[in-house]
Each structure stands twice: as structure tokens, then as C-alpha cells.
């Protein structure tokens, strides 16, 4: 009899401890009544863990709790449109402008860039080496239709920033994306996943894909794919920060979002971006926007400049 009660009380005690741990974790966030900054970003930026490092530094600078959620660019922007974020860090200028025009975003600030590259099997069955990006895509399609077992293209297929750039490339080659992507064509594969899993899939299928340099560098050792098209002005991938506008969500933490952006474009922030990656893989994963505004097509006010003190109050006026 005693053993039974002992057993039950032990279990009950453990349960009680764990339940209080769960609620305590919630309390911790509220106890110091720390300010909160909610960032919504894309996987291609987040998965490099650059933001984790910047978060740690920023949290100390401002005694704030930074919470970052990532996903494809589509859902990253959607979360902000629903008011679940104070700041977005994404890389799709078309959707960024729309976000601002529709009143959700305050302003755009470019802070970093890297490149998209087209990667493929070393023996380059479609023979795209040396072409410009759009020509290469067109050639892959033509070769793929003729010979789907030999030549394949793997798309992100997930409405991400990378996927958006892929669509633009098809567009630039004079092709209708809808026609390209119809399921009749076995050469075109839609992964529907993040960049990493897409790369692994491309590797398995010995196909081609569009990828950002940072993710490719991170996965390089697991892949037998090589970069085939690397230099094309159209492949520049610019990351921008947009605070959510108080006009859309009066309770958004615009001031802290502004502080974060100002940190991103400060000398320390831009230096950190310029060096990030050199320790782990020997070369930087990103380039700072500072000094490269013309190259990345980011003009005047939008390029690596801090936001004014009254940027947020102006908006809610």
C-alpha cells in the first residue's frame, strides 16, 4: 500500500514541477517587464545564424527581449501584415514596396546583400557555363524538355524570395512562368521546401537550381553540385529591413524596430555583417550595403542610412 502512494506522489510532484516550469518560462518574459521586439524574417537569412549573433549584442545594448521567427518570404511578410511582428527582414524588393504602399510598412532600409547563383552537376549536362542567368534558365528548360532524365531544374516552389527571383529570371528570358511550371513537364521539379532541403534534393537528382551564396556555402560539404552561373547583375540579392507602421498597428514597437535598423546600418553592424562567416567557413557569407549602394541598386535614403528620431511618430501623425 505504501509503495503505491509513494509512486503516485512522486509522479504528481514531477508533474507539478514541470507544469510550474512551463508557466514560469512565460512569467520570466513578463517579470522584468522587458520591452519586446518581434522580428519576422526569411529562412535564407535566419539559417545562417547571423541574426542570433546580432540579437545577443542588441539585447545587451537596449535591455530588450528580441524574438525572431523565420519562414519563407511569403509567410514572413504575412505575419507582419497580421500584426504579429514589429520588423521584417526580407529580400524581395517587389513585395517590400507593396508592403509599404499598402500601409503596413514604414520605410525600407537596405543593409546587406549576397548573390544568387545557379548551381548544377559538375559535368553540366545542359551546357550553361558562361551564359547569363536568363539564357541559362532558358537553355535548361529546352534541354530538360528534350531530355528530362538528364537535365532537371528544382524550384523552391514556396513563394520565397528565392522563388520570386526564379520567376523573374524566367520572365526576363521571355518565358511565361505558368507555362514553365505546369506539371506536364518532368524536368521541372517543385520542392516546396526551404533552401537547404531543396539543395539536397537537387543534389540527389543531379539537377540545377537557383540558390543564395550563403546557404550554398553552408551546405557545400554535403553536395557534389558546383556553382555554374555566378556573375550576373541580375543575380544580386539585397536584404532590407522594414519596420511595421504605427499607422497600421498602433501598438507595434516601432521605436525599438528603428533602433534595430540603426544598429544594422551602424559601423559595428556593417562590420559584423562584412565578417560573418569568416570563422566558420573561411569567407564572409554576406556583404554590407555600406558603400555598395550603386551596385545593389538601392538608392539614397534607402541604402544603409539610419532612421530619424521622429520616423515613428511621423507615421502615426
Amino acid at each position, binding site marked *: 500500500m505504501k509503495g503505491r502512494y509513494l509512486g503516485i506522489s512522486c509522479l504528481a510532484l514531477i508533474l507539478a514541477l*514541470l507544469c510550474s516550469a*512551463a508557466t514560469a518560462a512565460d512569467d520570466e518574459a513578463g517579470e522584468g517587464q522587458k520591452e519586446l521586439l518581434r522580428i519576422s524574417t526569411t529562412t535564407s537569412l535566419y539559417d545562417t545564424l547571423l541574426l542570433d549573433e546580432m540579437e545577443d549584442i542588441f539585447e545587451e545594448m537596449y535591455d530588450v527581449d528580441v524574438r525572431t521567427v523565420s519562414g519563407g518570404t511569403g509567410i514572413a511578410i504575412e505575419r507582419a501584415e*497580421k*500584426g504579429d511582428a514589429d520588423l521584417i527582414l526580407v529580400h524581395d524588393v517587389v513585395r517590400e514596396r507593396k508592403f509599404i504602399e499598402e500601409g503596413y510598412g514604414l520605410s525600407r532600409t537596405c543593409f546587406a546583400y549576397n548573390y544568387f547563383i545557379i548551381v548544377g552537376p559538375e559535368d553540366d549536362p545542359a551546357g550553361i557555363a558562361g551564359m547569363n542567368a536568363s539564357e541559362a534558365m532558358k537553355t535548361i528548360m529546352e534541354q530538360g524538355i528534350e531530355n528530362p532524365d538528364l537535365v532537371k531544374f528544382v524550384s523552391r516552389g514556396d513563394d520565397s524570395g528565392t522563388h520570386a527571383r526564379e520567376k523573374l529570371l524566367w520572365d526576363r528570358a521571355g518565358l511565361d512562368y505558368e507555362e514553365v511550371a505546369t506539371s506536364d513537364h518532368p524536368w521541372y521539379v517543385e520542392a516546396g521546401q526551404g533552401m*537547404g532541403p531543396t539543395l539536397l534534393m537537387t543534389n540527389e537528382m543531379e539537377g540545377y537550381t537557383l540558390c543564395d551564396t550563403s546557404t550554398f556555402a553552408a551546405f557545400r560539404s554535403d553536395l557534389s553540385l558546383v556553382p555554374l552561373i555566378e556573375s550576373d547583375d541580375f543575380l544580386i540579392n539585397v536584404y532590407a529591413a522594414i519596420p511595421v507602421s504605427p499607422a497600421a498597428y498602433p501598438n507595434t514597437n516601432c521605436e525599438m524596430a528603428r533602433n534595430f535598423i540603426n544598429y544594422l546600418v551602424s559601423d559595428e553592424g556593417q562590420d559584423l555583417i562584412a565578417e560573418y562567416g569568416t570563422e566558420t567557413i573561411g569567407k564572409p557569407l554576406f556583404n554590407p550595403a555600406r558603400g555598395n549602394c550603386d551596385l545593389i541598386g538601392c538608392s539614397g535614403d534607402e541604402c544603409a542610412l539610419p532612421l530619424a528620431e521622429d520616423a515613428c511618430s511621423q507615421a502615426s501623425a
Partner: protein
Amino acid sequence: MDEIAAGLVKAIELILALDPTVVEITARSLAIAVTSTVIAAILTVPLGGLIHFHNFKGKRAVVNIIQTLYSLPTVTVGLLVFLLLSRSGPLGSLGLLFTPGGMVIGQTILIAPIMTGLTIAALSGVGHSVRDSAVSLGATKVQAIFTIMMEARAAMLAAVLLGFGRALSEVGVAMMIGGNIRGYTRVLTTAIALETSRGDIEFSMALGIILVSISLIVNLLVNRVQGNWWV
């Protein structure tokens, strides 16, 4: 294949070193899963009992619906609760999205159908002779119900364990409602998803092994208690 072996080695390393990040993630996983299971049990055991012990029009339909809900995809529950808890949703002012509290709500909803349905199944498995004997020995309605529930306790415990297992190892709700926020809502399953998509297969495998080990320990503990009950 050597990733599995490498993962096993890494798992042992992480456990022995009591790696702070892994400990934090594991504790959070457990806390959220246990809380969800306890709340769900408090709600579903009486509910299951109510449904089983009463005959009402449409009882068959209700049981059917509950059993259909066993197959609710975790991402769908995640999406529904996300729409509820988002700032622009009806419960937005509670600020529960991307918090552990929100995850508990989501997981409780997720495992409730299984626990209700299996409670009903457990009670159905008790022979009529038990109720008849209890009544003939002078038991009141409440005492009879209690006796039947005690008879079914093994199967009901199995229902609770299943609910716990589902809560601990699901990704859909944890990811959509929790957001995998480092230091705040990251749990074992979402960490595994992140590390896999980052290409860190070894670490990902290690976390998976740790998750299964936790499950094993919980099961052993519960069996121990069960053992004591069955004198």
C-alpha cells in the same frame, strides 16, 4: 548511415556535457507536453466518461466525429489556432501567439480527440458484469462509475500516455504557434526541423535520439507506478 552512428555519439556527448541549450530545449519540450497532457486529461476523462455512460440521440455520430479527429494534421490544428491567436484574430489581445502558453493551447486541442476517444474505448472494454456486481453490492451511481473507471485504468493510462507522446513529438503546432524562437519557444521537434534544414544532420539526429530517450524514461516511470498499483 554513418550519420546515425555519428548522431548517437553526439547525443551521448551532449547529454554527458549537460549542454545548456539542449537542456533548456528538452526541459521546455517536456514542460509544454506535460502541461498539455494534464489539461487535456482533466478535460477529456470526464468528457469521455459522460459520453460513455449516457445514451443520447446522436451518440454514435459524436463518437464517429471524435474518431475522425484522431487524424487531424498537426499543421492544420496549428493553422486554426494561429488564426485564433494572431493579433488580427479574435483572441489577439491575449498576446498568446509565439508563446509557450499558446503552444499548450494548441497541443491540448490536438490531443483532446485521441484522449477522449480512447477513454470511451477503455470504458467500453469493461464488462457489464463489473457494473452489475457493483450495483448489486449497493453502489450508488457515482460509486459504480468510479469502480468502472478503476477497472479501466490501464487502458485509460494508455490513452493519456498516447496523448503525451503525440504532444511531445509533434512539429506542426509547435512550429506554427511557437515559431521556434531561440530561448523562448524552441522545443526538441522544432529544433530538429531547423537543424535539418540547416544541414546539421548530426546534431539533428542527436536531438531525435534524446527525444526518444525522454519518451522511454517517461514510459518506464509510468510503468513503475502502474506496477505499484497492481499489487
